[in-house]
Structures are given as C-alpha cells and as structure tokens.
C-alpha cells in the first residue's frame, strides 16, 4: 500500500519498516522472541519512538500524526506490521488511546496517555466474548454503586497481548446499556488465563472479572451514551486489522507467486498452467481490492467530520476477512505439500490471517452491521 503514501509518510514508513526487519524479522517471530517480557517492552518502546501510538491522540494531549490523518498513517504502518507478522498490541493500544483521548476523564488521561504514547505501557480492548462476533458489550456486566463507581463481573475471551503493565479497556453491559472502563490487568479481581490459539504470532487470554472495582474516574463512556464511541473504536480496530491483514496477504501472495514461477512439474513451471494462473489472477484481484478498500477505510476513519467511518471500516473488515482466508487457502493449494510443513512460513500467514478474520466481527457480522447502520 506504499503507493498510497505521501513522501512524508513514506519516510516514516521506511524507518518503521527497517526497525521491524532488524528487531523482529520473521525468523524471530517464528521463534517467539516476542513472548519474552523484556523484548516485548523494548520493542514497544522503540515502536513508540517512531510514533506508533500517538496517531489517534490530538497534539493537545501529547499525540499527533505525520499527515494529519492518523488513521491513514497507522494503517500504512499496520500494513508493514502485517507483512512481517509483527507481534504486540498495536491495534489495541491505538484503540484505547483514541478512546481515552475522546472520552477519558482528565485524571485518567493524565495517568495513562503518556505511558501509552511513550510505549511504557500497552493497552488492549477487552471486547470479545465467548463465541466472538462483534457485540462488544457481551460477557461482562457492570453494576453501579452509590458513589458512582462500578463493579465488573464476567469474562472476556481472546483478549490480545496482556502484560502486567497492560491497561484493559473493558466494554460491558449495564441495565442502562453498554458502558466502558479502563482497568489495569493486575487489578484486584482480574484474572488472566493464557489461551492457546490458531495464531502463533500473538498471545491471547481469557480475562475473568470477579467483582472488579471501577472508580468513576476510570469510566470511558457512560452507560447508554457511549454507542458512538464504541462504534468509533470498532472502526479504528477494524481498519487497522484490515490493514495488517492486507500486509500479511501481500507478503504471502508475493512468495507464492514466486514459487509458482520456480516450481517445475510436467516439464513446465507450474505458474504456466492456466489452472493455477487463473486462481492467482483472481486472488490478485481480491488482493488489489483489499488494498483499495483498506486505504479507503483508513482515509475515511481518519478524516475529521466524515461520518462514514464506521461504514467504511465495516466494509473493509467484511471484504478483507473473506478475501484473506480465500487468499491463504489459494496459496496453500499452490504450495502443495511443502506448505504443510512446519518449517515453511506459509502456515504462519495462514494462522495469523484466519485469526484476524475472526477478530471484532467476521464478514457476516459486519454485513449485518452495515444493514443496521443504514437503518435497514
């Protein structure tokens, strides 16, 4: 997607790209170096220095972006993160930073935003409940107390990349509709159980909330009035995930096309057979459309005053989620047996892209959501 970048953005991207290639090449991703806490912290701080976590925060709160369209800048970085299957809570931290900037109390902003922007701490959006789907308030319920504080009960599934220093933005249900609050991962009553996952490049956990106390200042979106905020968070998350997916798809597809040129069978490179050539051409079309729709979503989400962001993001997530799984399946078919071996990188892409397709609503969920957004 670099062709969609301006000269300024390209410079930023080049630095970020070199950083990823040097500090966490695919070999290191595969070896799981990112599971090491000190590596993760250092990687996050270096990313932060490159502006990875400031793009959804206004300059008045210490943030800022190169182009003025933070979502587009972030999507371009996400694309390169996807190419390299980069670890860490990039999407989550940016979503939470955006939410805090938009709706956090002054105390909360002061306490948390600088740490997120500088990479001292990370954040994750605890949105998914068992079974998944995009109804982000499910799974956890909040009851209010007389002093304006809340108590959380319930469980969230598949929460990404939790460290002890991680801030969890918990979206939950109340009698008056959804609300949100920011909770430290090591708060009393929070228990984090690591999960195994299809994806081998990131960590996921189940998080249980057993009477977790939330002071009024930790509320990020009051009960029943935070619908637009949640919609905004979802738009950011879906846009960045779509961009990460497109990066991973692009990388996987490039190596697959190269394989189709090199691999000989029946006295010809297999890519000379129309059977494969047409599959690859169709996949290439879907990939180009994925790039186009991901950039369109990022532009829209990052344009102040443009109210089409949630729709654009849902369209990108719906399209790219299906195109992504189609793509990894086609690449698998082109690789044949070699793609079934652990040593080959293809399965890392297969796993990551399939996982991303299911996060924050799959294609079917977002299509229904689009109908609802349109008032149908």
């Amino acid at each position, binding site marked *: 997607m670099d062709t969609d970048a301006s000269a300024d953005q390209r410079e930023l991207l080049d630095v970020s790209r070199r950083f990823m290639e040097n500090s966490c090449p695919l070999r290191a991703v595969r070896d799981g170096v990112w599971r090491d806490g000190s590596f993760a912290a250092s990687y996050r701080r270096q990313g932060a220095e490159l502006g990875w976590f400031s793009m959804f925060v206004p300059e008045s709160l210490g943030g800022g972006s190169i182009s003025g369209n933070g979502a587009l800048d972030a999507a371009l970085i996400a694309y390169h993160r996807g190419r390299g299957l980069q670890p860490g809570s990039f999407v989550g931290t940016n979503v939470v930073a955006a939410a805090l900037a938009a709706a956090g109390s002054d105390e909360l902003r002061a306490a948390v935003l600088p740490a997120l922007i500088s990479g001292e701490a990370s954040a994750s959006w605890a949105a998914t409940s068992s079974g998944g789907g995009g109804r982000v308030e499910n799974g956890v319920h909040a009851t209010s107390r007389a002093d304006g504080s809340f108590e959380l009960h319930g469980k969230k599934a598949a929460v990404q990349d939790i460290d002890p220093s991680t801030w969890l933005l918990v979206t939950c249900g109340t009698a008056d509709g959804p609300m949100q609050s920011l909770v430290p991962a090591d708060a009393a009553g929070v228990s984090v159980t690591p999960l195994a996952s299809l994806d081998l490049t990131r960590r996921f956990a189940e998080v249980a909330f057993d009477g977790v106390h939330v002071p009024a200042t930790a509320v990020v979106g009051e009960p029943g009035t935070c619908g637009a905020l949640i919609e905004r968070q979802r738009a950011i998350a879906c846009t960045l995930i779509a961009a990460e997916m497109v990066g991973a798809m692009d990388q996987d597809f490039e190596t697959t096309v190269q394989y189709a040129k090199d691999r000989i069978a029946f006295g010809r490179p297999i890519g000379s057979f129309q059977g494969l050539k047409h599959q690859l051409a169709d996949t290439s079309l879907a990939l180009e459309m994925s790039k*186009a729709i991901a950039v369109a979503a990022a532009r829209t989400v990052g344009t102040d005053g443009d109210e089409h962001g949630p729709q654009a993001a849902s369209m990108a997530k719906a399209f790219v989620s299906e195109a992504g799984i189609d793509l990894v399946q086609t690449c698998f078919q082109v690789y044949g047996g070699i793609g079934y071996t652990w040593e080959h990188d293809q399965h890392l892409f297969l796993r990551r892209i399939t996982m991303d397709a299911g996060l924050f609503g799959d294609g079917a969920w977002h299509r229904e959501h689009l*109908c609802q957004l*349109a008032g149908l």
Partner: protein
Amino acid sequence: MTDTQMDVDQFRAEARAWITSNLERRPAGADAEARGVRTDEEIVAARALQRRLFDAGFAGITYPAEYGGRGLTAAHERAFREESADFVMPDFGAVGGVTVGPIGRSLLEHGSPEFLQWHIPRILSGETIWCQFYSEPEAGSDLAGIRTRATRDGDQWLLNGSKIWSTGAFHANWAMCLARTDWDAPKHRGLTWFAVPTNAPGLTIRPITQINGTAEFCEEFLDEVVVTDADIIGEVNHGWSVTQTMLVYERGAGESGVSLMEPRELAPDLVELARRGGRTDDPAIRQAIARAHVADYAQFHLGARIAARLRSASTPDPAVAAYSKLARGVYTPLRARAAIEIGGSDALTWPEGDDAGQRPAIDYLNGRIVSIAAGSNEMQRNGIGERVLGLPREPSFDSSIPFNEVLRKSRGWNGRVG
C-alpha cells in the same frame, strides 16, 4: 493567438453563447442513455443537430482543423461538454460513440490524408456513421484469428466472410472491416483494414436479437464485396497496428461504466427490491444486500486506485487496467444474481409491460456481457497472470506459424508436444 492555443475560458464563453441561443434545454430528469439503440427517427434528428454543431464549429473539437475539426485540446472539449450538459445534444446511441471514438481516432492515426479529407468532415457533420466489422463467428476472444479474406482481383480487392457483434451497423454508412490478406504469414501479420460502404453490393447486414429481446448488434455476410486500394486504412498486412490503436480507445470507453461517485448509500436498488417484497427482515437477504454493497464500494476504490497508479507511474502499465475489467466481469453477474435472489418471485415474474418490474430480470440476462465482451474474464486473468504477476507464459501454438497451418493443426489437436 492560434486556435490550438485559444484560451479555454474564452472558448467556454463562445460555446455558452452559441449553445444557449441555438440548443434546446433538456427536459428535467431526462438522462441521456449512454448505450443502446436509437430509432431511425432519432438518428435523423441526431444527424440534423450534429450538422448544426459542425457548421458552428463545435463538432470534433479535438479533431484536426484541416479535416473539419476545431484542433483544440481535451480541456476545450471538456468545457464544451460542461456547458452543454443541460441541453439536447446529438444522440446516435452506442454507434455514435464508436464512430467518433475508436474508429475516428484510428482513422486519424492510420488513414492517408486523401482518405481523411474525404471521410472525416462527413463524420463530424453527421453525414456518415461508422461501425466496426471486426469480430467473427469464429474469432471472438482470439482477436487475431480473423478468417474473412480479402483477395486481390486486378486492382481491386474482393471481401468474403462473415462478421458479428457490430454495434448499431443498421444505422451505419461505412464500416471499418478487418480481413486477412496473407494466409501464409503468422496470424498477426497478414491482416488489413478496409473501409467498406454499408450499401456495397454483396454485403448483407442483419440485426441480432439478444436474449433480452432487443437488438443492439448486427451480423454481416460479405459475398464478393469489392473495395479498392483507396479504401485501405493503414498498410496492407499491417492491420494489427491499427487494431492496437483501436483497442486503446475501446478500452478507454469501456472504463466509463464505473461509477464516478463513491457509493455510500447501502445498495439502494437492492434495498428497494427487498422492500417491495417485504423481505428486508430476512437475514439472508440482508447479507446479500450488504455483500453487493461492499463489492460496489471495493470496486469503486479499486478503480480509483488503478487510475491513480496509471497516472503516477513513470512507465504506466496498461495491463493493470485488466483489474477493473475483471472486477466488473466477476462482480456484475454476481450482483445481478443477488438481485434475482433478493427480489424472489417479484424479480422472476412481473406484470406485462412493467419496465421497472422487469429490470432485475434484464440485468440478470445482461449480467455476463461484461464477463465476455471486449476481453473475457479468462483473457483478463491471462493478462494479469502474465503481464502483471509475471507468471510464465501459456504455451502458444499459433503465434509464429502460417495462419493456414494454424487452422489445419487446430482441427487435429491432440495435445502432444514434447
């Protein structure tokens, strides 16, 4: 100041003055149809109006002045179009676009000065309409597989063969006809273009009824049709380079099908269809509507992205335009099919004579045109595979042997090579 440097604003003022005092305003809500057939009466009216434009100097604004055009730039042309947007303009239907688009441009590039002096003013004044005698029953996707033959007969040529898919040939006065003049050369190297008057003895033109019941195209039979050296466009046996010019302008025209506005409203036509059948609550229908809308949106942005890529590249690769064509070829039939499913029995049956009611059915029947015409989906996939992705070539069995031999060999095809 010469005409070609004439200031666009000045030209615009001149055009506006002439237009407002000479043309009728278009009735509100009457959109000009971009495609399709016109009646004989409409063609007569269009000719008369075209003549008035020509006489006033507003026909062929970008055509050379020496052939009756105005010799101005695309910017002038655009200014004229903007100024005339609300007025009744000459409308020949699809055949009009073919005449001044791919045909006119190819003639200008490859015709002799004498040829152009005779033909171009007649085109610009609306006196002659042209069509293409190009595709053949046996040569569709395989554009160079032409079998219509032109044989020398003294200082004349005799044309024999059949043509098909000629847009609006029943309205045309002349045709640009591709024929094989050397059967011993490889397929691309023995072709020649001729100008043929449509009233030539031995030429039969017959409209083709399409599956939607209309007739936009014709088929032709050429039986010893006589033409002369003066009718040759380009050089004998070098017709393929004329074809290349023509295809560039055809593909350009093809792109116009893409919508110009970002589609933000949830597929309004499909929503309306669902509403009519009371099916907006059906989850499967909702999925189908949203799926079509997402595809519309992705296609729009694909088009914008490709246009930007073509503009910005130092060496633009026209092969990437195949993406837009393939996208339309893949998604158009899917969308038409979705409409049929969304409408249910309301899309499959409709009151006799209800034009709006039969729209989904007509779209469904027409849905595959774009998957087939002007380069089928399969051709686009080959193009993307080989020229964009750089995949190894398909084996080609007909590009370097005499065309005669291609025909003979193809009949005995057994697939054995090595």
